């Protein structure tokens, strides 16, 4: 393999790789703004200039392919002086309004100023005034003064989103990013340009001014927006989720995330059910867990002991572990042969990431329940049975339910429905007893995406209210009925699943890497 020497390190490279790619991989930091691994090379920020032996001038390391025997220096005085000057130049007209800039704290201009420049601005003239707070589209706000014209956003729209909604207008000092007349930036992936922007020029109108970034705690998770299972970061503070950002995973979403998925962060915050609810006639009252659990258990027990049918419906957002415990309850206690599945309505798919199935774990729930010998049905037979009052007691178990008028009406009419949900919807108020469940941000378990990829869902924070996962509620109900499964945590459930279901034997929960792994329902 050909080698290149960067800062005295001999590094191997594949033909065609640029200096910055090889250096970054080896842990050598070259400052850059406009370069992005998934976008074409523009080489216009000039921050990544490095010294190459026998080259007459400094070369942009993002654009220069490595050659065999090339000797590169990234920390020589000449390079450092150039970086300082380039940075001075980039900051010439910068308004330095960091106090009101959302990017402050994760801004490359701030970081490189501290590491590379550290000099006062040489600008004697008044700084150029440009327009601020320009709404490019429904979610993106542009500040022309902060922009350094790296054109990452323009290249993203052209190369990844495949819709040229952004362009560079004017020249020189006056250049700025803009949209075309009558065509706002309304692409379903428009918020990616906010992530791409290395400075605070493009900000998200959803996250804007909500929180300073240095307060946020980041943890890995999986997007609950559709069956794609995009890898995300949850940014939260005090158990409130403020934004979702894409997490790099070349096997799933590369480094992109759709706007629809990003906006699902509200599912972790809004209208949360915080304590059990009990319905007596028309009055819905909050109830402590100590009282709600025996009430629900007594209801279930009367049906189980009288050998009356119990119907179950499970959310398609439930984790595999939750599905397993629910399946166990259905088979061993309720004597049910089928479980109805419900979730979000079908949506629109696209070529980049979005799947039409808006439920994150249809594959997983189906595989687990099928493996337990249960048939899975749509919601319609469950509704029909509910309306005919066939089951004595019904359980509707789900994380995140969109309001479903029909289901709520049927639940209200039936009167003996137990419900577990994260949000206080019409369903929670229609049920006899409702228990609060965790949201996707607090859940621990695995999801299997529509592409057959098992991914670990990590809790970003512990539930602050009485919220517990579905499997905990189900296990506690079972315990009240006199059956102790000892399935307390996702780990113990997984151990049991691996014993019972061959398909899960191959993938131990602790082995599911942060990037996920392929899953085959037949266990091959």
């Amino acid at each position, binding site marked *: 393999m050909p080698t290149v020497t960067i800062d005295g390190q001999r590094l191997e490279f594949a033909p065609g790789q640029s200096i910055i790619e090889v250096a970054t991989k080896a842990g050598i930091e070259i400052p850059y703004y406009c370069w992005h691994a998934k976008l074409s090379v523009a080489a216009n920020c000039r921050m990544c200039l490095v010294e190459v032996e026998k080259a007459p001038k400094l070369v942009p390391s993002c654009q220069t392919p490595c050659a065999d025997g090339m000797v590169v220096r990234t920390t020589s005085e000449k390079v450092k002086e150039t970086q300082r000057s380039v940075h001075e130049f980039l900051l010439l007209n910068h308004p330095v309004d*960091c*106090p*009101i800039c959302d990017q*402050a704290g994760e801004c490359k201009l701030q970081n490189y100023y501290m590491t590379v420049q550290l000099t006062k601005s040489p600008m004697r003239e008044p700084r150029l005034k440009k327009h*601020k*707070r320009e709404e490019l589209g429904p979610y993106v706000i542009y500040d022309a003064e902060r922009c350094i014209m790296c054109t990452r956003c323009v290249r993203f729209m052209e190369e990844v989103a495949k819709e040229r909604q952004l362009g560079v207008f004017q020249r020189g000092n006056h250049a700025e990013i803009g949209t075309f007349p009558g065509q706002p930036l309304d692409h379903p992936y428009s918020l990616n340009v906010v992530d791409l922007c290395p400075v605070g020029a493009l900000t998200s109108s959803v996250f*804007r*001014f*909500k929180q*300073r970034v*240095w*307060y946020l705690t980041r943890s890995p998770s999986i997007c609950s927006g559709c069956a794609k299972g995009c890898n995300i970061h949850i940014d939260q503070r005090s158990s409130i989720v403020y934004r979702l950002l894409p997490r790099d995973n070349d096997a799933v979403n590369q480094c992109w995330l759709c706007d629809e998925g990003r906006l699902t962060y509200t599912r972790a915050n809004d209208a949360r059910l915080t304590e059990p609810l009990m319905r007596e006639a028309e009055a819905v009252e909050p109830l402590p867990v100590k009282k709600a659990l025996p009430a629900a258990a007594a209801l279930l027990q009367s049906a189980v002991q009288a050998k009356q049918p119990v119907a179950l419906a499970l959310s398609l957002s439930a984790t595999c572990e939750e599905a397993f415990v629910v399946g166990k309850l259905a088979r061993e206690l309720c004597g049910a042969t089928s479980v109805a599945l419900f979730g979000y309505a079908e949506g629109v798919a696209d070529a980049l990431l979005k799947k039409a199935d808006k439920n994150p774990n249809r594959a997983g729930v189906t595989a687990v329940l099928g493996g337990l010998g249960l048939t899975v049905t749509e919601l319609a037979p469950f509704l029909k049975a509910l309306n005919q009052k066939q089951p004595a007691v019904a359980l509707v178990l789900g994380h995140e339910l969109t309001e479903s008028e029909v289901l709520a009406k049927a639940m209200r009419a039936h009167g003996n429905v137990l419900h577990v949900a994260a949000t206080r919807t019409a369903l929670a108020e229609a049920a006899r007893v409702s228990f609060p469940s965790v949201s996707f941000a607090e859940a621990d378990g695995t999801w299997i995406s529509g592409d057959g990829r098992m991914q670990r869902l990590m809790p970003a924070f512990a539930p602050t209210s009485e919220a517990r996962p579905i499997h905990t509620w189900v296990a506690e109900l079972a315990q009240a009925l006199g059956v102790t499964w000892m399935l307390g945590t996702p780990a113990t459930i997984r151990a049991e699943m691996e014993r019972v279901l061959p398909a899960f034997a191959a993938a131990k929960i602790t082995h599911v890497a942060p990037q996920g792994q392929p899953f085959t329902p037949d266990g091959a």
Partner: protein
Amino acid sequence: MALRVRERTSMSLYERSFLPEVVRGLGVTLRHFFTNLIFRGSWRYTETVRYPFEKRTYPERFRGQHRLLPREDGSPRCVACYLCATACPAYCIHIVAGESPERAVEKYPVAFEIDLLRCIYCGFCVEACPEDAIRMDTGIHTPAFLSREDGVVGRVDLLSLLGRPQTPEAFGAQNVREGKPRGQ
């Protein structure tokens, strides 16, 4: 941390009468009284201020209760950057930022609350402020509160306070208590 349980011992009759301790305390007072009577002007003399008839003047940099400084139109200079809240070691500053409808000012504090009961009057917030929007130059001591809620001072109250006469002038609306306000 290990928990140490200590037996509460009951006081003896001697201690319970409190009389010997009262006498001992009066002794200290009397000692100072006679020392001051005899050694006036010497290093033994204890300087006292006849509070509340006399009050000491505080140094210029005394940190009293905070105030928010206004712009010329009376709105707070604060841009809700959270730097004071970030610098605060007592976590007593609570800010909710919002998008201002005016074009000139992008960000403003929808809510700006200081919990005076938590505040340790370190002045870090004043140091951190990039806008000179918060100062501790009112010269006011923390008032007494009847409930914890009263200890939380909001944006409007903080804006209504003025600085002491000797406080440095800030560009904006009326700033200094007594003395001539700017522009008159």
